[in-house]
């Protein structure tokens, strides 16, 4: 039986924005977590720009898909700790300028990545402002590989 993978990056399943470098009253960063491409977070000037998505518990990330406009360079990092710190690179991608058509970042880490927080950095844009419409994170709740490794002393 094939179970469609769950999008972990939905506000309705407990994901939230821990921080963002731009805050437009009508286009706040939370709109990347509503599963809707029509709504979006708008950057309000300068680069780099970033936002951090926090999950209710640790998840094991298998794939990330981000829909945006005018982004030139994505850098994505993951943090396992309770507080959003000690981020480690998960993947990066230079994007193409698709003009005013949606761009899709697709990252599938070779090894599953455990994360409590994901940091999405936009290092550069193709214009002064960028938009991010939807973040989709496929994965599983908890730490998938936990069975095989001795219980780590993680607090």
């Amino acid at each position, binding site marked *: 039986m094939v179970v469609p993978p769950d999008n972990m990056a939905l506000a309705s399943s407990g994901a939230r924005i821990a921080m963002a470098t731009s*805050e*437009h*009253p009508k*286009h706040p960063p939370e709109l990347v977590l509503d599963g809707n*491409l*029509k*709504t*979006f977070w*708008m950057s*309000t*000037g*300068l*680069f780099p720009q970033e936002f951090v998505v926090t999950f209710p518990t640790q998840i094991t990330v298998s794939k990330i898909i981000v829909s945006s*406009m005018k982004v030139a360079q994505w850098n994505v990092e993951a943090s396992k700790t309770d507080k959003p710190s000690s981020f480690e690179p998960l993947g990066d991608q230079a994007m193409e300028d698709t003009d*005013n*058509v*949606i761009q899709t970042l697709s990252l599938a880490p070779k090894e599953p990545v455990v994360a409590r927080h994901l940091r999405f950095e936009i290092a*550069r844009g193709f*214009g*002064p*402002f960028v*938009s991010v*419409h939807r973040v989709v994170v496929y994965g599983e709740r908890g730490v998938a590989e936990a069975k095989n490794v001795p219980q780590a002393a993680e607090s």
Partner: protein
Amino acid sequence: MSTKLILRNKCLILGNATVGKTALVQTFHSDGAQFPKTYGMTIHADVCVKPINIPDTNVTVEMFIFDLAGHDVFQEYLPKYCRSASSYILVFDVTNADSFKALPKWLQFVKQIKDLRGGRGVLVATKIDQAFRRSVTTQQGEEFAKQHNLMYFECSSATNSDVEAPFYFVANASHELFEEHLRIISKAAAEMH
């Protein structure tokens, strides 16, 4: 409802050494309280932040002003301060013909900054209080600006005259550019499914 919107703009200040870039920025930044009478050469770059409220809106443009060194020895270091700049103000000194002749060189420099393409530049003539020493006329300044599609302003930091105008222009243009991008993106987003 007073939901405030803060936009950010990185503005480069460019031009020959001693034309009065630092004086312009500091006079503007301090609302006229601080005009540096003695010359202190800018080393690499100085950065300051100044919020500008856009009239009749809830919008504030935070200007990140990069006051760049004009001296030749710093030329090679300038590009790294220019990344992701959204606007620029080109400065010359009306008592210094060489600083006016150097403008094409500075425009050439600006052309190499990818992020600046599209935005309209600003040309500022300084030290107009020194009328008796003036060697570049208003007409010459205006003509150059027109030829290169720059907005033209004249000011004196020493007498605190008209130093705000170029910055207000940049802030307003930045707000308009933002609204235009927002409209384009909103339209494209509405057509998605």
